[in-house]
């Protein structure tokens, strides 16, 4: 006779949690802070360009900071690439790359904080997430890494060792958990193209596309991390991502005002 389980009665007390089935649940999650504008500032695309690119973008963001709660998230860039290249050369596991790749976006977030300090820029860690309501109430602009906190728990991919969940994924998941409908990615291209426009200037621009259409096209390269497209299909709140060219003055302002500039990728 086995010793008895001392269970707490609940709707899931006897449920199998190992293999969730879709269609079983009447799950209506509440949006925590749907008005927050979750914005990624690209690493290689923006921050590695220095003052010439960064200052005008921050000016645009500061100009609208009292209109919308802004949560800025930073990408990594060339130093993260250097870490990934070194770690790949040393044949280290993907989880180690993900953990080490986290340092660079945090540095970048600190850089942006220093520039925005006089406007209420506040560097926050993942653990400060629950204090966001306070920061917004105070009129601050919280700035955090775009990297999700998976670190060593990042799964190995089928090919290579580059972590699949990097700063694009983290920004999308941030918007999703806050209940924001759209996440904004500031990059140095006008959005999505058929091929990399840096390598093929003739590449055709794609202004609007669904996640499924994008998957069906099976492009070798994409302007956002591939997992973001998968997440978009499963998302409950964040049903659109918008990619704009931060090097073109006014684009960020227009995007925040709801204009479909750049590329919009939709859930359906």
């Amino acid at each position, binding site marked *: 006779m086995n010793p008895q389980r001392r269970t707490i009665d*609940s709707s899931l*007390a006897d449920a199998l949690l190992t293999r969730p089935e879709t269609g079983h649940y009447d*799950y209506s999650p509440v949006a925590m802070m749907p008005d927050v504008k979750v914005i990624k500032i690209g690493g*290689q695309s923006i921050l590695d360009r220095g003052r010439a690119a960064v200052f005008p973008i921050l000016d645009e963001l500061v100009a609208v900071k009292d209109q919308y709660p802004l949560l800025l998230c930073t990408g990594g860039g060339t130093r993260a690439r250097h870490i990934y*290249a070194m770690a790949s050369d040393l044949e280290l596991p993907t989880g180690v790359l993900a953990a080490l790749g986290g340092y660079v976006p945090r540095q970048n977030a600190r850089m942006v904080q220093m520039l925005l300090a006089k406007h209420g820029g506040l560097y926050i860690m993942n653990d400060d997430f629950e204090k966001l309501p306070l920061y917004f109430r105070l009129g601050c602009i919280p700035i955090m890494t775009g990297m999700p906190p998976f670190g*060593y728990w990042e799964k190995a991919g089928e090919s290579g060792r580059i972590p699949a969940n990097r700063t694009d994924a983290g920004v999308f998941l*941030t918007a999703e958990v806050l209940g924001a409908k759209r996440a904004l990615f500031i990059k140095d291209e006008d959005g999505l193209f058929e091929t990399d426009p840096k390598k093929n200037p003739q590449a055709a621009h794609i202004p609007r596309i669904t996640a499924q259409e994008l998957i069906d096209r099976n492009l070798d390269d994409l*302007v956002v991390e591939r997992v973001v497209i998968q997440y978009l299909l499963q998302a409950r709140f964040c049903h659109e991502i918008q990619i704009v060219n931060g090097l073109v003055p006014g684009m960020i302002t227009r995007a925040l005002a709801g204009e479909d500039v750049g590329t919009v990728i939709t859930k359906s």
Partner: protein
Amino acid sequence: MSELVKGDGRTHITSPLMRESLVDRRVIAKTHSDREVQIMPDVLLVGIGGQSIFDRGRAALLPLVEELAAARGTQNIVIGVGGGTRVRHTVSIAYDLGLPLGGIAQLVGAMEEANAVFLNALLARHGSMVMPREHFWELPLYLESKMMPITISIPPYHFWEPPAGDSPLPTHGSDFGLFQYAEVLGMERIIFVKDEDGLYDRDPKRHADARFIPAITLDALLADLPQELILDRMLFEAWRFARHVKQVQIINGLVPGMLTRALAGEPVGTVITKEAA
């Protein structure tokens, strides 16, 4: 590898990934190699079930403590603990309240912490310690001093748990978390201590005629994954592309001596292997 390169408006550091799109499949493939460093290959990970063991109290736990204490020093062991019924209650309340999936994922780890302390309270005099989940780089010190570190299992996905459509259940659960812990450190074996003899084609608690599976390969299991699984589905999905974990063993911790035999390498319970034996 430290020169700065300018000229396109950005400042790059020379590296094989400089200027490259990390989304480009051809670039990603270039970072592939058949080998990967095994950081701590000689460590065995033992996961102790929450609902299956801890929730049964001293009658289930004390014999396992004795077996773990006896094994101490014979091999390097890290112990992971599950959360059990308190996790289920947490999720059921959070589901009813309509908390977002990431919020539910953020909550559950706290319920495992108590089980880590429970186990450590019983095992400390034999040389155990509660270890913060991420403190990997201190493991050589702990293991060199013959300590048995105890860690929670849930992975730190927190608010950033990926969405799962209409399901309120985070897909990156404790079994997956422990698997990934072993994999990233290059460990080759994981033993899950549960309250069933191992893997069945259906849940043996619900179906008296469930068929026991003593040994199976990952490929064979994935080809016909049981609807009712004793371990997280995500574990098996992650294992497909994993490099190091060779064997996942599931044993019945309520049967005296099973853990000792599994620790000694005996194929008791169910043995799932990455490749055909």
